[in-house]
């Protein structure tokens, strides 16, 4: 008997009290919790996102479509970034005013090479207002997971209002489980020393979020 069979047989014996006719989806799950907490206008949702991002020490910027390249250029310069890693599908105009040299995200590049890069600029899949969370799904403007992990400075652009949802229950149906997802809520942090929160351990220690207004919103 394989261990698989052993474990499954133990499970079945342990569940002898479950009526034979009961199917796996029969035990009821009450879903009377809220899809979103409170009612907000899109502007208020955006406001809440900005507030919650900042509350967990992300640096929030806002701009219109024409202003993005200049803003990214300024943020990279202020940081003193000489190199910036770029996902393959990032709109090339976004970096058109950047002084830092663009480093393409190559499959054969090593983590050590990435460690030498100063910054990374990406888009995202969506942002969740109630929790101040960015979700990356490895799309063309986000690249592989490692590029937003190893460099110490991450600039993430959120298209508003299209990419903003109110709550966690609103986020999950819009995400594809088969894609590797990274949920980011503020820069990396630890509370392991006397439960004192310290920002910045292994992930990027500086997270800058640009709320990019499209269609005249924001």
């Amino acid at each position, binding site marked *: 008997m394989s261990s698989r069979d052993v474990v499954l047989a133990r499970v079945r014996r342990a*569940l002898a009290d479950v009526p034979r006719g009961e199917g*796996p989806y029969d035990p009821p799950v009450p879903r009377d919790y809220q899809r979103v907490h409170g009612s907000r206008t899109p502007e208020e949702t955006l406001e809440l996102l900005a507030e919650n991002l900042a509350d967990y020490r992300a640096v929030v910027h806002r701009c219109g479509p024409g202003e993005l390249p200049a803003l990214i250029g300024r943020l990279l310069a202020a940081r003193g970034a000489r190199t910036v890693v770029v996902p393959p599908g990032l709109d090339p105009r976004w970096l058109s005013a950047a002084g830092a040299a663009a480093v393409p995200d190559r499959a054969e590049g090593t983590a050590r090479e990435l460690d030498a890069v100063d910054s990374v600029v990406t888009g995202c899949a969506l942002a969740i207002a109630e929790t101040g969370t960015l979700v990356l799904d490895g799309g063309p403007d986000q690249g*592989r997971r490692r590029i937003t992990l190893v460099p110490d400075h991450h600039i993430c652009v959120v298209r508003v209002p299209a990419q903003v949802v109110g709550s966690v229950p609103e*986020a999950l149906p819009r995400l594809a489980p088969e894609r590797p997802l990274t949920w980011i809520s503020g820069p990396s942090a630890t509370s392991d020393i006397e439960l004192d929160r*310290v920002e910045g351990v*292994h992930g990027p220690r500086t997270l800058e979020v640009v709320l990019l207004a499209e269609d005249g919103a924001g």
Partner: protein
Amino acid sequence: MSRSFLGMPAFPRASAATTRDTRLRANLTHATHTIRDKRAAAVAELDDWAQLRAAGAAIKDRTLRHLDHYLERLEESVTAAGGRVHWAADAAEANRIVTRLVRETGEREVVKVKSMATQETGLNEALAQAGIRAYETDLAELIVQLGDDLPSHILVPAIHRNRAEIRDIFRREMGKWGRPAPEGLSDSPAELAEAARRHLREKFLTAKVGISGANFMVADTGTLVVVESEGNGRMCLTLPETLISVVGIEKIVPSWQDLEVFLQLLPRSSTAERMNPYTTTWTGTTDGDGPRTFHLVLLDNGRTDTLADTVGRQALRCIRCSACLNVCPVYERAGGHAYGSPYPGPIGAILTPQLRGLAGPLEESLPYASSLCGACYEVCPVAIDIPEVLVHLRERVVQGGPVTRGGARVVLKPAKGHAAERAAMRAAAWAFDHPGALRGGMRLAARTRRLHPRRLPGPGRAWSDTRALPAVPAESFRDWWRRTRDGSGSGNGSTGGVT
């Protein structure tokens, strides 16, 4: 190497030793009270907390009542996504599987992200015996590993260490494991975190094998979820070529949608945040992104035995948030080590005895490690009625009856002299309500141990007269602790732990 929980003394003795350690108590009180208040605030932000909690409990119950179905479903979907699934009936088998998988890569070093399952199996010790070095990468786990210590809290395993102790450990030990601590390292948390960042970066950049646990596994999609703060999880889950995840079979949720409940319940209950800094989800392997090989080791190790108890099975709903520890007056006084397993606090008091089939004095004493005040139930995000299970297990200890051990039914003998046992139970409950008295009694026990090695004085006397209690050792807990620090620890182990 790291310490082992094997052969820990029974709870009352271990806790008595801890309650004498005033620094440990001060560290614990400070930490648990801070997080308690923050958690209450984070929970109060959601006016549907009660509904989320009910949904969380119901989803876990649905899973547990049909665990065979969901396990097979999970295996199918993980396999379809490019993962390989292994089954481990017990700790030794899990360790054998992981050791073999690491050997097959030809590597001698692995990076680990906090995993309670591998702590439970003593994986690090097993790997060490096979000549493989496991580096813990969670900051608190690093502190525990460098300090040659045992974890004492689910979320913050080094909660018993204050900043000055941590600085001393870093200065003394980091150099032996890799990059030493910087000159003049102070005890500011920011500097300590920076030292850990530098020390571990070297390991992350070169590691070929990562070992993790998981907070959730989605049966329908084959997705695993790791919830963390520091980014060491992301490092271990994405940079290595091979990823091995060791996960208890109860960590399943049926559907993707179910995550909407747990990703609200867990961060607020655990770190008291709206959302933890990083959550990673992955489904098998992805071309060009992350590990090329993914192994999932499904661990039983007493979980099916726990499932067989219709009252006790609710312990398997636990999502390891640690909220119950932070509100527990007994945990606050006793400290995490007294519980003798990687699962301290109220959840440990009901989970450890069940995982081990009430098979020994520690396991029999753990259900008494509570004043039954009910605070743990109040804060539990999946509504585990811990007091109910405690009372149920006490009854088992006293009256005997069937339990399942390693899949086999055994019948525990009823303890002799029911009346005396009941008196002892009342005494134990009273003592935990009055920790000062407990400490006094235990100190007295220690002082008289040479004279009456098998009898407890005072209200515990009837208890010790009717049960074969292990001899009180002729050394204090602290002495025992030091004596057993010689690295001989094998079997059940320490270090690791999914948050």
